């Protein structure tokens, strides 16, 4: 429901990283979205499209990698990947309750692909110095 504000947070992080690494032009951004992050990948894609229609990040491609839910059985300790996030019987011992979530809650920017300014003297604008 708040994917637009998540995209705004992402754009702020991307701008910081752009400056930190002297990126001239960002081509592609990869985010990892866990099955239990609460953010819907389609809505993230739509929010991204809305907020990068113009401006300094116009046309940057967003790749969303959906990360599966992984849990560790609360009874026998076996790690497994449940088919359903609501009903998670352990394949080893059948326990349904008390599993530890190992991954699936994450939502993070994994990597950015960009043209990097390594002492290029071409007539590109100087990288921004302030925020």
């Amino acid at each position, binding site marked *: *429901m*708040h994917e637009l504000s*998540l995209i705004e947070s992402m754009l702020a992080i991307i701008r910081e990283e752009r400056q930190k690494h002297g990126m001239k032009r960002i081509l592609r951004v990869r985010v990892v979205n866990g099955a239990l992050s609460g953010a819907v990948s389609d809505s993230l894609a739509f929010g991204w499209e809305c907020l990068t229609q113009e401006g300094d990040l116009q046309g940057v491609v967003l790749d969303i990698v959906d990360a599966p839910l992984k849990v560790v059985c609360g009874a026998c300790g076996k790690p497994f990947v449940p088919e359903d996030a609501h009903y998670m019987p352990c394949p080893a011992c059948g326990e349904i*309750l008390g599993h530890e979530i190992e991954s699936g809650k994450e*939502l*993070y920017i*994994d990597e950015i692909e960009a043209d*990097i300014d390594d002492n290029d003297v071409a007539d590109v604008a100087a990288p921004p110095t302030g925020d």
Partner: protein
Amino acid sequence: MGKTVTIVRNVMEANERRAAKLKDFFDKERILCLNLMSSPGAGKTTLLERTLSDLAGEFKMAVIEGDLQTDNDARRVAATGAQAVQVNTEGGCHLDGSMIEDAVAELDMTGLDILFIENVGNLVCPAEFNLGEDHKISILSVTEGDDKPEKYPLMFHLSSVMLLNKTDLLPYVDFNLETASAHARKLNKDIQIFPVAASKNDGLAAWYDWLRHARAAKR
């Protein structure tokens, strides 16, 4: 062809940083902070009114009221004599750390025992934003249906307590306390479950005992 730079930064990091700062502050001041979450109309404000009145002699308490619009709830809560500050999210679906920082700055936190944060009525988004609280508390009213923990798992997964409110209406609705409890325990085996009817002052003793224990743990 561009160069790929590994970033690995959590999209929620700005909020997580604020939440961590708030948590440090609450710990240092030994204030028990509770984040109350539910659907609109589940009875958060009524529960607070009762709690603030009944425990007024025991604890110094304050409330941060989150709503999209109006200060109706802050006025209801302030009528009990407790300090209350209203945060209007102007359409936002949840409270975040920066809103709590602003609200805390408006409150007199000296000697406070318990700070209640009444989140925006919504079963989805509030659960994703930590506010530096010690515990998340879910309130589910029996008129909403006993399948809600199953349908909206995150909130119940993260909560230390689930209050099943409006139990006085059980004869009139198709709600099974056992089913709701079983769904919640499937997500969170340690969740404490208290059936209450806040408006009828029924079943609140167990909730108050839990509050006393949680408060004592912060001292």
